[in-house]
């Protein structure tokens, strides 16, 4: 059987592309890391792939603000192709820097003008830590088989979920567009450090209404195996394949 092809977009400063590639390979796909220049030159076309992933990193150094320059580049070079891609119900996934790109490009929570953002952490600095995440009820097929609370690491400086207005937040909640929410170990409300950045509504990830465009600050590609869980050694409950792995399997399952 032909394995589904996944395009992992690379630009100057992308740095989670290798492990994301490994994640999709483990999940049974045929991933390919592709530099944006090759798309601009027409050597590669995103329509030849079944899923498109913008991985973590510091695209263009996150100069100006996180993901901003890449948003500009994508809009001017791949904007229409991406609209066509998502129109065909192919998954578009943004992790960390990729999530920042998706919201600033106006692809999440709905396609249009930018209505939410990811601002500087309340701590005013980059932080790498593991968090508890509540898996929300939404249309996304990628949360299939998840328990209500899982653990994943976050590592970012600009991850504070911010909305342009209360109306937007209400529309997101009413429309069931929250993918993950930061929570306390028992699934309750999260305060710092459990809400690591001060996000509005403790929102850690969003999904489009059809569940196929998904963006999140946490890094599932860093939780593919139990050994990566910081409490693996403490008798923690991470399964042999971590929940990160299940997330990627769900995507591959969907596009197969």
């Amino acid at each position, binding site marked *: 059987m032909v394995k589904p092809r996944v395009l992992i977009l690379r630009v100057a400063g992308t740095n989670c592309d290798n492990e994301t590639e490994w994640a999709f390979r483990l999940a049974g796909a045929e991933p390919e890391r592709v530099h944006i220049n090759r798309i601009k030159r027409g050597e590669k076309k995103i329509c030849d792939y079944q899923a498109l992933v913008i991985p973590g990193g510091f695209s263009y150094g996150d100069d100006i603000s996180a993901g901003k320059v890449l948003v500009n580049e994508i809009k001017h070079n791949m904007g229409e192709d991406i609209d066509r891609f998502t129109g065909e119900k192919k998954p578009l996934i943004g992790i960390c820097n990729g999530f920042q790109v998706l919201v600033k490009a106006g692809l999440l929570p709905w396609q249009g003008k930018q209505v939410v953002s990811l601002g500087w952490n309340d701590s*005013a600095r980059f932080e790498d830590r593991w968090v508890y995440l509540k898996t929300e009820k939404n249309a996304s097929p990628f949360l299939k088989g998840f328990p209500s609370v899982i653990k994943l690491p976050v590592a970012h400086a600009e991850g504070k979920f911010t909305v342009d207005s209360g109306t937007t937040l209400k529309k997101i909640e009413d429309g069931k567009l929250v993918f993950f929410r930061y929570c306390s170990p028992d699934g309750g409300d999260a305060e710092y450090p459990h809400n690591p950045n001060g996000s509005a509504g403790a929102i850690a990830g969003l999904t489009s209404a059809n569940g196929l465009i998904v963006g999140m600050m946490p890094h599932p590609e860093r939780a593919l195996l139990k050994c990566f869980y910081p409490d693996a050694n403490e008798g923690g409950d991470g399964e042999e394949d971590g929940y990160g792995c299940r997330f990627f399997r769900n995507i591959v399952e969907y596009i197969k």
Partner: protein
Amino acid sequence: MRIIEVRNKQGVPDVFGQDVRKNIREMGISGIEEVVASEIYGFEDSAGDDELRYIAENILVDSVIQEYCLNGEKQSAGEGRVVIDVFYKKGVTDSVADTVKTAVKDAGIKTDISISTGKRYYLRGSLTEEDVKSVCMKLLANPLVQNYSIRYEEGNKSNA
């Protein structure tokens, strides 16, 4: 040089300003009350105002949390604060400036712009001139690689 200043919108916490305030306190300068920090982008005269506004709106500003002003417009006058601008000296790597140039090109602007990036700090409180100089030298700028300028908004000197 014309300056685009990008700052947080009203109601969005200024985490850097708060951080700087804490550091000034640590230096033993207790008169400091508030610090507001913003990003500044200095352009040499090659670009026109319309182009600069286009660059600000499409490249520099995150419209959900930030706003901009060009050449000090929209400045509420008479708040009586000290304004400190810090720029890199010529010849020092200014990677953000290089990135802005790339982004300007991506956006289809053909004009060859010359740009430098820096930070602006608004300090409010009862600060002596010596305090301000000390904050510049010991905290906000390193004279080996950066230049700074100090300006007083109207109505400040009184409490110095």
